[in-house]
């Protein structure tokens, strides 16, 4: 059974159809890439899945449950985590604090218990700290643990954001352009991490990506979009040689 399913998903901003009746399924354990030219609606789909936008039409379901109308702050608790295209970290906090915020959806102690620092709050803290340390070890962030995020190089911040998403212990991870702003070497490392996340942690990944080398390296299936519409869906090789996709990227006539 599909882990995530979108049926006839659409969102309109005024007259603009940012996403226009797109349907797709993501199976458990795969890396699913979304490609397309600028303005194709890739990030909009992420914003729909993480419920920052409300779809105009269509339904989304995750592990068999309808998530079309669930409030945004409950999405992380269900097991969907995301990163952002332009890094939305908490810049004035340390790396460790950012990771601990990622653990927020597992807080059990009530606000009152936290204000009084009751034993339940202490247990929460210790559990979160252990989880954060696991992620630090997994992503090799030890030397940045107490550094303030605002002063870190872009590539490291990108990894920290990935770590923060992992701290929510997701089943489904949404990566919005994991390679943007990274050099070739860093992009390659990012690719290895995505493979590790899939194989070692068993997390399903949906990623928006422009770098076709990375897409070929890690993804099992690719979906190509243009103007909010689905162009092609299949293996990386199939999609890359699909005439509609080539036309969307390069332009020109395609024999009918």
């Amino acid at each position, binding site marked *: 059974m599909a882990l995530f399913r979108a049926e006839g998903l659409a969102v309109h901003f005024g007259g603009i159809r940012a996403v226009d009746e797109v349907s797709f399924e993501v199976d458990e354990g795969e890396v699913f890439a979304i490609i397309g030219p600028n303005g194709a609606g890739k990030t909009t789909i992420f914003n729909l899945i*993480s419920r*920052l936008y409300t779809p105009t039409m269509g339904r989304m379901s995750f592990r068999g449950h309808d998530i079309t109308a669930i*409030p*945004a*702050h*409950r*999405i*992380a*608790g269900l097991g969907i*985590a*995301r990163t*952002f295209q332009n890094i*939305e*970290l*908490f*810049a*004035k*906090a*340390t790396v460790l*604090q950012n990771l*601990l*915020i*990622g*653990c*927020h*959806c597992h*807080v059990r*102690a009530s*606000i009152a218990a*936290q*204000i*009084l*620092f009751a034993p339940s*709050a*202490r247990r*929460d*803290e*210790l559990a*979160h*700290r*252990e989880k954060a*340390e696991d992620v630090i070890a997994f992503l090799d962030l030890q030397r940045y643990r*107490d*550094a*303030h995020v*605002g*002063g870190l190089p872009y590539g490291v911040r990108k990894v920290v954001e990935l770590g*923060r998403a992992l701290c*929510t212990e997701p089943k489904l991870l949404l990566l919005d352009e994991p390679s943007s702003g990274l050099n070739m070497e860093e992009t390659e490392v990012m690719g290895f991490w995505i493979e590790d996340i899939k194989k070692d942690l068993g997390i399903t990944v949906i990623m928006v990506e422009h770098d076709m080398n990375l897409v070929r390296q890690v993804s099992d299936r690719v979906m190509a979009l243009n103007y909010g519409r689905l162009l092609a869906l299949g293996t990386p090789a199939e999609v890359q040689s699909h005439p509609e996709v080539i036309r969307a990227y390069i332009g020109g006539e395609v024999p009918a």
Partner: protein
Amino acid sequence: MRTLFKTDYRQDLTIWRHRGDLFWYGLLLLIVLALPHLLGVFYIGELGAVFIYAIAGVGLMLLTGYTGLVNLGHAAFLGIGAYTNAVLLTAGWPYLLTLPASALLAAIAGVAIGIPTLRMSGLYLAIATLAFGEIVSNVLEKWDSVTHGFNGLPVPIPEIFGYPIAGATAVYYVALAMLILTLWIAANILRTPFGRALMAIRDSEVSARSMGINVALYKTVAFGVSAAMAGLAGALFAQYVNYLAPNSFDVLLSVQFLTIVFVGGVGSLQGVIFGALFVRLLPQAISIFRDDLPGNIGHLPGLDPSLFGLILVLTILFQPTGIYGGWLSLKAWFQDFPLHRAGGFRRQRSYAKSERV
């Protein structure tokens, strides 16, 4: 320079970073407890007022410094707390009930202003809270049957376990106890997910939401907790002044609380204490130098408020980390002497907005 070697996650959960901290804060507590035997009544009264301002300042620090919500109506919560305390004491309630009741009523008012302003931030929130402050101030003036309007409201002298809370020394000790309680609560908030959620909302609301933080809930609770602390401060303030007038809780007082937060150092609880000392001592300093100023500058109306405004602006421009931030840089300079250089190998503590206590 002290290097901390941590061997247990529990070491990160303590309020004190190490035993040295515990020693110095313990010493400070002993000194503060002994002060009434060493200083005159006037100074004890002033220090009591510093504690009361600091309690309200901690509340505003949580809201403005950590959650990033500017509040120009903080004095209104103080007023609500003060009048609640006075009215309930007059009705014969015991002091140990009127204090929490004042905090509670102020918290309810805080939630009431927090919910409609959920989508506001920055300048718009400042204007909305300013308006709220004016409304409360007007209600206190016009609601004769309860507040006695401009005739003022005498505050009865309460008792704790048969001991009357009257005079500077008694108010000083009660305010000190309440300040310690407030600081403990604030420190707890800052070391738990609640506090981190507030900082997350301040830094990036979108990603806070994606991390599972219920932004609306936390903003509202932040308003409530902040207002509760101001209400508690107000209840003590009523004891401090003995006689309540509605115009004590105006926008100038709110600006003074903002000054505490910014001059003391945004994002640090220690900064609140420095800020409160500064704000309470500045008018005294002005009155000392008033007569030495050339011409009649010293007697111009509005000298105090303009000075507060000027200092607030200059601090935000030139020393954004406030007094506490300045102290940390100075400490770092001496610890690294003679190797210190700006932006050197040390972790930049001066930018540690989200630092725990």
